[in-house]
């Protein structure tokens, strides 16, 4: 463990934190903001659906799945960049 300096740890954690914040901002938008405006969104249609309904029944769910796959990929990149990924 001693080969990882406090500076590397701090830089790694700063990047990890930023990725997490980005993840949570997107999560917040698709969890709460879009559904708060469901009435307005229902004025438009998407693939034949009223948009407000679509977001609650499918759209947000798609975003959640994609963002977790992206998070796993991006966090792994960060871990490798700072040499703190697990040994395979």
């Amino acid at each position, binding site marked *: *463990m001693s080969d*990882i300096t406090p500076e590397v*740890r701090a830089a*790694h*954690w700063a990047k*990890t934190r930023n990725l*997490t914040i980005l*993840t*949570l901002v997107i*999560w917040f938008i*698709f*969890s*709460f903001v879009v*559904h*708060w405006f*469901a*009435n307005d969104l*229902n004025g438009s*249609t*998407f*693939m*034949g*659906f*009223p948009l*407000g*309904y*679509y977001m*609650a*029944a*499918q759209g*947000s*769910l*798609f975003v*959640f*799945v994609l*963002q*977790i*796959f992206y*998070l*796993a990929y991006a*966090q*792994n990149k960060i*871990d490798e960049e700072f*040499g*703190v*990924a*697990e*040994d395979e």
Partner: protein
Amino acid sequence: MKGNFIDNLPKVYGLYTGGFIVFILLMAVLEQIGMDAETIGILFVAFTILIYAGIGWLSRTMEVGAYYVAGRQVPALFNGMATAADWMSGASFVAMAGGIYFGGHGYLAFVVGWTGGYVLVASLMAPYLRKFGCYTVPDYIGTRYGGNLARLCAVIVLVVASFTYVTAQINATGTIAARALQIPFEVGVWFGLLGILLCSMLGGMRAVTWTQVAQYIVLIIAYLVPVFWMSNKQGFGLIPEFAYGEAVMRVAELEVMHKVGELKPVAGVGLAALTKLHNDPGSAVDSWKFVTLAFMMMAGTASLPHILMRYFTTPSVKAARQSVAWSLLFIFLLYFTAPALATFTKLQILDPNLATGIIGKSFADVSNLDWIQKWSNVGFLKIIDSNGDGILQINEFFMRGDIVVLATPEIAGLPFVISGLVAAGGMAAAMSTADGLLLAIANALSHDLYYKMIDPNADTKKRLVAARVLLILIGAAGAAVASLKLTSILGAVAWAFNFAASGLFFPLVLGIWWKRANREGAVAGMILGFAAGTYYLVHIRWLGGAEILDLNHLRFGIVGMAVSLVAMVVVTLMTKEPDQETQDMVDNMRIPKGTTILSGDH
């Protein structure tokens, strides 16, 4: 087969899936040559439970690591399937589509909440807890904050939340077993428990993991096949999820025509009639209710120990993260189908141009339909010509939400073999969740309470015997409570989420993300958060107290979480910061490299 079991997983489960499909086809053939529906139902449920029990037997173990964390060798994708089965309960399988049918847009908050929670699990919790190397959630709390009091608080919150949840699941297994096997509910509950224990007792987490993968395969096939079949029959194509927008629009027209919401049902029937529009987000209060419910379900997802502990079983931190993504993908397959199913069922019932439409038809004709008679006989459905005009109006058609999943194959005129399949799927969903919950409780009591606090010198054999004895006792207690039928399945499930989030969410998250968080703060957060949430629930539910900000009994955890956060931060800042050893522990948790914080044999 060459090589070890883990290397052969795709082959093993591929064969299993093929075998299950052959079984379905065999049942279809037997139906054609005249076997009756009851026998087919019994064969479906009995056959699948027998398979799970077989897997449970083959996975038996006397090793601590295998018993508690499946030897930490479950690949990300398979752990994703196991988590999906662990997660999707009888309530998701049987009740969700019906909830959307009756609740419309407002109910979709459950769909959003029960999926979005995984973003929190992936970003805030799972990879760090995996690095920690704990066996249970209280194991993490107890080590991170130090001291038996913190550990004990976590055990108490875990037991209350999970036990509330497990009674609902045993209730669901009992209901399904009773109907499929034609036995009384009280017997069905104990029969269901027997099946659950067969899966978990001998092999702990290892056995539960491999049965949950098998149960996921059964439940997802059982959920999707009828919907695809029905959709194809109605001309919406093979993948209906992308094509039912028109159906949503059409339902809105039909709702105006049938005066949904305008016509009020007579009171005292005990079943529900449709009064809410399918796609009406409502006023600002409704939007507030939507986001608060979604938030509570998400926070609960990230606090429920039976879910978090699934990510302790992956081979690495990286695999834990990927595994959360797979979990949500597998869960998503069911959750984005449920609204489609609700819409199709509604369309079939409302549309007078379809052969299946009943609203606006002659009351006498509808009364003679096979499925109306069958489900009326078991009390799931009722039609009452309350205005005496000889026509069935929307407010004269009453049913239980569960029918949407259970009876849709019959409404759409699909063969009985599909109904048998759906029963097996519902059983798989309820059993797999009950397994995970029972194991979470028994493991917390055997590892944290017994081994860590009462008898730290107990040898392996004694520990594992204690774990199994506790599993049986808790299962029996759960079945006893379930047979009393105290709460509805959905109410109990939502409460479990609120309890878990009130007590555990902030101590879990801040333990990773706030190095300064200390024991005193965590204990205050758990005790005060849990107590405040519970007090608020009792206050509004039984003491007739007023709701704050429209937060009802499904959302009481918001009060608990707010108190928990404030208490934890204030008390932490008032007391001294954790020692250097603890701070180093947090540093090491944050990077994947290196050995786990707790050794493999702690």
